[in-house]
């Protein structure tokens, strides 16, 4: 390929060593019953020692396939049909199985998404780590292996590594497991490390620690890295260069700064339009989802793959032949696969256009007052029964108090285990509250189970669920499922009228009407989530609880679904309770925010109040942990130490005291923090006086461009 050879090696953003990996014109296909399906087409990449290259793209774009090809591990039906992969100058396709086996794990290592699945649950951490040098190096003694393993655990900053060497994987937290996996990958000092979504399964504050570790690795060990992720913010924090993939091809590649500041390919541009960065706002500067859908691998269009979704598509330029990678600026390796990049003037292009008026919140719809939810846990040990303490309580929710008004979006933010989903269950009536009041539309519903609620209460409080693959019943058609809700809530009774309303609901969520007779497996994740929204709105609810509705979706799909949810909210004056762990999305779409930690509210207030100092130290840490895909944002780095305490045995004083970066002394451990009112409606539960909290530097600062 002509355009590969012109890649200038010498003028990379930072001084680099020898090329470790050279991929040229790589084409990979899967062979299925339906015939040959090209998964990756004409992929070129050079990675140098000490350099981190990000592969970013939506699901199905072929990024993991590339990683598997580099490992020469394609599965039974995948095959490399063209191009070469050279590792340190050797063509990998010429190596024997035995040579490859020696290479994998010692020269090329890989870190996977799910750390628990990568570790053997029946072996101690120490044994698993020591196995690596013992297997790969002929004259390595047990003692040497032990010493090196210990050293590596220290290098990935695991506290108390001696103890950890004797622990089993299930005894340590997910973040530590992932650190162990990374340590294991680094033990043989590999020249190339592949990281496939290494933090996707982790909480944000834990992710921040891993990301910082990965960013250091290249400098400390000179390891070349390929970092695969769907999250552009993570790529910005970890990588030097980035390849944006779309539908099996590289759409654009270049130095991180070039791509993030001056994206040239319309797809890259579109991706940035879908990310809720701090300068976005749901009313004045809403997200701009990319229209259309990712083409299926065997239905790719003629010419440019992105053509059908592109605003600048011109059949004469883009609609035929092969679109080649084109050099944008000769000296930094910034290249894009776009036939029209010279003609597009991004400075004047403004796809946003539409703005909305902010909505005035109305009367109080939901009032939560000192609500508690405890789960009894039976301890059947003899000691517990003798001491009369056989029942202990998990305090999933401890004294929650907040309000939600009509037309308002209230977000509940927190990491896994903070009790946000428990609250949703109590609200929906799947559990009952232990104590306190939960008043919805002037009726107490905290201790009313779902079976005992009136039809009106049921229909006016509905939920959108998290997992698109789980939210719809796979054995019923879409029409049956939405129709059932309409019938159940008595909105319509006549069969034809129900069908008619199903179609109108499909119009509402912008899906074709013939979806009514389809089954969930024929739909994509985003489409399923739209049906979930249609189902929730079928009974004209006054309040909808959305439990992480977009966290399982791709960026561009998620932007569209978020937009849809807010459009419907505006049209129906619905109150939205948005449960999420993602502060970027929360900042973008909510009016008020409730920050939870270990079942308690740490801070609540309007979005502006919560995202600006004074804030609770936990809010500060959360804000700092969220990766932001904008190079102009300056962020203060706060890495939390320690682990989330167990809800069975929470700290006596402030729940956050064990990890707090601003801990002021024993008072934090011993006394529950007072609720300080900063403004009316803005509360912070902290021992630190509000004047001191106000003096914190803001975590996020947007530099002028």
């Amino acid at each position, binding site marked *: 390929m002509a355009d590969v050879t012109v890649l200038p090696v010498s003028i990379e953003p930072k001084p680099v060593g020898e090329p470790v990996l050279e991929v040229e014109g790589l084409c990979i296909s899967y062979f299925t019953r339906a015939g040959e399906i090209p998964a990756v087409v004409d992929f070129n990449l050079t990675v140098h020692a000490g350099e981190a290259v990000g592969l970013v793209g939506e699901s199905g774009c072929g990024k993991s396939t590339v990683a598997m090809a580099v490992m020469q591990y394609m599965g039974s039906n995948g095959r490399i049909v063209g191009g070469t992969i050279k590792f340190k100058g050797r063509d990998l396709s010429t190596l024997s199985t035995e040579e490859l086996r020696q290479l994998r794990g010692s020269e090329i290592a890989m870190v996977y998404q799910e750390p628990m699945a990568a570790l053997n649950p029946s072996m101690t951490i120490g044994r698993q780590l020591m196995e690596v040098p013992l297997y790969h190096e002929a004259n390595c003694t047990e003692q040497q292996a032990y010493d090196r393993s210990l050293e590596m655990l220290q290098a990935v900053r695991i506290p108390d590594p001696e103890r950890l060497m004797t622990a089993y994987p299930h005894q340590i937290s997910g973040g530590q497991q992932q650190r162990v996996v990374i340590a294991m990958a680094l033990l043989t000092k590999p020249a190339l490390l592949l990281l496939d979504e290494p933090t996707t399964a982790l909480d944000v504050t834990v992710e921040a620690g891993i990301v910082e570790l990965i960013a250091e690795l290249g400098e400390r060990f000179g390891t070349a890295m390929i970092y695969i992720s769907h999250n552009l913010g993570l790529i910005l924090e970890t990588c030097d260069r980035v390849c944006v993939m779309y539908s099996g091809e590289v759409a654009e590649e270049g130095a991180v700064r070039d791509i993030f500041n001056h994206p040239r390919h319309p797809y890259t541009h579109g991706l940035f339009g879908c990310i809720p960065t701090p300068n976005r706002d749901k009313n004045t500067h809403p997200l701009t989802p990319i229209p259309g859908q990712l083409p299926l691998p065997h239905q790719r269009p003629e010419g440019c793959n992105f053509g059908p979704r592109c605003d600048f598509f011109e059949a004469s330029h883009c609609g035929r032949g092969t679109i080649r990678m084109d050099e944008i600026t000769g000296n930094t390796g910034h290249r894009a696969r776009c036939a029209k990049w010279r003609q597009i003037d991004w400075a004047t292009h403004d796809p946003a256009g539409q703005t909305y008026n902010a909505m005035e919140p109305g009367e109080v719809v939901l009032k939560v007052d000192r609500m508690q939810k405890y789960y009894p846990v039976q301890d059947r040990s003899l000691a517990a029964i003798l001491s009369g303490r056989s029942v202990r309580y998990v305090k999933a929710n401890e004294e929650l108090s907040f309000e939600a008004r009509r037309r308002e979006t209230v977000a509940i933010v927190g990491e896994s285990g903070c009790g946000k989903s428990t609250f949703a269950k109590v609200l929906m009536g799947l559990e009952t509250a232990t104590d306190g009041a939960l008043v919805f539309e002037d009726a107490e519903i905290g201790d009313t189970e779902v079976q005992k609620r009136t039809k009106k209460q049921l229909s006016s409080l509905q*939920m959108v669920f998290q997992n698109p693959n789980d939210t719809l019943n796979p054995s019923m058609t879409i029409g049956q499922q939405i129709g059932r809700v309409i019938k*159940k809530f008595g909105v319509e009774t006549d069969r034809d009228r129900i069908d008619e309303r199903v179609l109108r*609901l499909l119009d509402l969520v912008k899906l074709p009407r013939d979806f009514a007779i389809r089954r969930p497996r024929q739909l994509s994740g985003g489409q399923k989530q739209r049906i979930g929204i249609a189902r929730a709105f079928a009974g004209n609810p006054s309040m909808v609880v959305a439990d992480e509705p977009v966290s399982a979706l791709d960026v561009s799909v998620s932007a569209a679904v978020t937009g849809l949810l807010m459009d419907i909210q505006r049209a129906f004056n619905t109150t939205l309770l948005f449960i999420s762990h993602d502060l970027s999305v929360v900042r973008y779409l909510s009016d008020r925010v409730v920050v939870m930690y270990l079942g308690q509210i740490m801070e609540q207030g309007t979005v502006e109040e919560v995202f600006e100092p004074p804030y609770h130290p936990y809010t500060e840490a959360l804000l700092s942990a969220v990766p932001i895909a904008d190079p102009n944002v300056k962020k203060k780095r706060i890495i939390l130490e320690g682990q989330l305490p167990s809800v069975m045995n929470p700290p006596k004083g402030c729940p956050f005291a064990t990890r707090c970066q601003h801990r002021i002394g024993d008072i934090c451990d011993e006394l529950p923090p007072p609720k300080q009112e900063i403004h009316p409606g803005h509360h912070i539960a902290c021992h630190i006086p509000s004047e001191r909290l106000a003096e914190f530097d803001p975590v996020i600062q947007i530099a002028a461009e």
Partner: protein
Amino acid sequence: MADIDAAGAEIVLPKRPNPVVGVLKSFLLVRESKVAMVGTAILVFWVLIAVLAPVIAPYPPTQQVSEMRNAAPGTPVPAGTALISFTEQGVAEIPIEGTYWLGGDRLGRDVLSRMIWGAQSVLIYAPLATFFAYMVGITMGLLAGYKRGWVDDVLSRLGDVILSFPILVLYVVIITTFGASGITIVLAVTFASGPGIMRIVRGLVLDLRNRDYVAAAQTRGESSLYIMFVEILPNARGPLIVDACLRLGYTTITIGVLGFLGLGLPPPDPNWGNMIAENREAVLTAPHSTVFPCLAISSLVLALNLLADGLREISLKD
């Protein structure tokens, strides 16, 4: 409040899909697996034999010809043999002709005819017994898995007690108590395999009850009955259909065993188990009278196992 009916263009209702067509279409899935096709072919063969028994069986299943006792396969009926029947008009002689293609049994009955008629009883009682076992097992499994708590404890312990009983003793007890008949066979099989089915269903339900669509049904106030049978059960059908095919095979064997032990349908019913039992003493001198019914049982069980394997294979493809 804005209503969605306010907006939108002319509504054209799409045609409702015919549910019967959908079910028929899913039967065609069998074509995707060769193994399942072979199984289906053998199964269809036996079903046709059972349905057409009155037409294709050359002789009545209980007709005895003393000259044909333990006759080798392919022996022709001797000329001049006649069935003497007493009617109001007097004694009539109906001549018997032809050949015993699979030989005669110890009472001189045609093995081929008895096998053909025997297919009827096995293809009635095995599915019937399996069906009832499933009705009971599914209901118990759904209740135990969905309700959890004390319901689960009681049902599961009950199942454990039944399963811990030696199964043959269980059959003997039930059938000697109620007498040998088709209904007691169904009852015995239901009682013995119900708990096993319950365990499978319970396991599937424990997984499915945590799905979001179940939570969605709960939050719109659906009854437990609706959630169990409409939301959960259809999604457990894949493994259950495979298991039902296997279990149908076991039940076929069970009915054979019961017949062999003299606990099945009372003689002279021509079922395969009875045939083997009646002729076992002559197994060395006239093996054909036991071997062919054995082959019949094996082929039917094999067919059902192949079908189950094939269906599992098909379900893994998607």
